[in-house]
């Protein structure tokens, strides 16, 4: 069974945020406006987070693209009272928004703050709804949503592969952010397969996990900057 995971090489990343927009375009994420942004209600499944350290002139700024970590031991699924968020046998932490009751317990339990809530009914101005991705649902008002590793792509890819009676190839299933990354800093694949690129990279001495001490076992692995 595959264990899907992602590796982000911060040494290559240029913080261009193409991944951020690609994710929003792929996943029908509601668009924000000055009001929602001001209220802190914009939704970015994938977000670029700045860490600013030390004082001028020795300031260091680290820029970290942060998708859902797809923890092996996710704090969010334990607390859901209705099982609307679950981890699949392939390690994808999904959000079944048709079942979600909107209690926002998972959003508060997630140490990475990767879960988002639809405070209003997502709406698109007339004409703009045309770009919505037919493979992804538009979420309702009052439910939680999050990064899904674009698992609809997996559903489609696997469907096609099975129909064509072949194995799922390593490039068949790749999330939108990884596909677009201009610096080729993001990798995606099967962490369970020791020969996959992500497995090899995750063994790198530069590899680190975000808040590893929490014991959530993230499947998003960062490679630090520097030699």
């Amino acid at each position: 069974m595959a264990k899907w995971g992602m590796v982000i090489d911060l040494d290559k990343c240029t913080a261009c945020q193409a991944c951020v927009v690609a994710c929003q375009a792929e996943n029908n994420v509601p668009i924000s406006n000055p009001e929602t942004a001001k209220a802190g209600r914009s939704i970015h499944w994938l977000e670029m987070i700045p860490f600013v350290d030390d004082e001028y002139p020795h300031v260091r700024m680290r820029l970290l693209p942060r998708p859902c970590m797809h923890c092996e031991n996710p704090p969010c699924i334990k607390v859901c009272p209705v099982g609307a968020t679950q981890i699949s046998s392939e390690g994808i932490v999904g959000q079944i928004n048709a079942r979600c009751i909107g209690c926002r317990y998972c959003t508060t339990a997630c140490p990475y703050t990767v879960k988002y809530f639809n405070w209003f009914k997502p709406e698109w101005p007339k004409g703009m709804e045309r770009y919505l991705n037919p493979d992804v649902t538009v979420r309702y008002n009052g439910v939680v949503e999050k990064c899904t590793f674009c698992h609809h792509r997996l559903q489609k890819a696997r469907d096609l592969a099975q129909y064509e009676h072949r194995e799922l190839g390593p490039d068949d299933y790749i999330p939108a952010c990884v596909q677009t990354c201009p610096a080729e800093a993001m990798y995606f694949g099967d962490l369970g397969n020791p020969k996959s690129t992500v497995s090899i990279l995750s063994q790198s001495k530069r590899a680190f996990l975000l808040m590893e001490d929490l014991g959530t076992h993230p499947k998003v692995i960062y490679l630090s900057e520097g030699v």
Partner: protein
Amino acid sequence: MDLKKAFEHDEKTLLKPILESNRNYYITVCLLSLVVAWGFFAYFHQLRNGLGVTGLNRPVYWGFYITNFVFFIGISHAGTLISAILRIAQAEWRRAITRSAEVITVMVIFFGVASILMDLGRPDRIMNIIKFGRFESPLLWDVTSITIYLTASTVYLFLPLIPDIALMRDKANKRKWLYTVLALGWTGTPRQFHRLETAISVMAILVIPVAVSVHTVVSFVFAMTIQPMWHSAIFGPYFVVGAIYSGIAALIIAMALIRWVYHLEDYLKDIHFNNLGTLLFVMTLLWSYFTFSEYLTTFYGAEPSHMQVFWAKFNGEFRFEFWGMILCCLVIPGIFLSNRKLRTIKGCVFASAAITIGMWLERFIIVVPTLANPRLPYDRGVYHPSWVELSLLAGCFAFFILLYVLFTKFFPIVSIWEIQEGRKHAVAEVAGRVRSYLPDAYNIKNDVDVETKTFTNAETFIGNT
């Protein structure tokens, strides 16, 4: 003979609020209803437009509603728990106050539950909790334990009500059908009394662990996560203590109001307030001890993510709430309740009012700062409640008071039969009990067995001493 007169006096005084209503009552009800209606309007608005009408945001996903939830569930410990403890401890001064305490419990749990419903993004899918409930989630533990608590408390409120309802059925002229139904055919035979007393004692014992579990489980909602300053083993007892603390305070306020409005000075006496005030002071110390332990461990451990929350409370954006809480829950009660001279009715009520506010702030200070300071850096962990949340807070309080007022208009708020029973039996019983505590040597010895006989011999017994 005197006893009979006293009984008549009890019935007359205590039934008066039900039988007669003055203008102030109607004005109060109208005003409260207006606030409640406004609250309903606010909720309707939220239901139509979604939770966006609140001041909640990311990362402060929980705000007033969850604060209210914890607060109301805390208040609910007033009644059932205190009355059960007092009953089991056979504290005789309980007789006048148990009813008003138990009513608080039952009424306020509804608002606790309602707060959760208000907080849901999809209240229409509430049945999913039953259909797809996962017992791994602390929220489901809450649902279970609150349901049990509500049932138990209702039964516990209802059982001691039965004789009084029967009295109403026989004495009052209005709503006879209601009292008839609710009296469940009570005629006041010794057999019935015996059964009732047994049932009440069983419930009193049962309800204590349930009450403790309820607030422990409420604390687990927070403590089971790994969020800074939530993930704490002390949270269970801390919440229980806080709950009892705020519960007693609420009870004192309610009693004072009842006493004042219905002129029941004769029934709710200084001694009641003094006793409750002393109990409250004990709780003040206990609560302070827990608060101290909680914050000291965080401070001493000095984990960065915890300290971020810690400082946000101590001298950051939540400093007013935090020091307000210390003032209301530690300083004011500490001054007013520790000192016998200040522990008057007014003093107790003032301290209780402070504690009620302080405990609400404590709940707020637990819920919001942790969310506003997540582990990953965000700039906008600010939370300003919107008019909807404020209206719903006001609506909840008004609705609670309204229901309470209405209750006093339907049922005697001081248990008549228990007072009467007190007049009839308790004095003798206490005397017997006290005697049984004393060393047997040199004790006055009767031929008859103390425990069965004292009831009838009460007056002579007192005369002898």
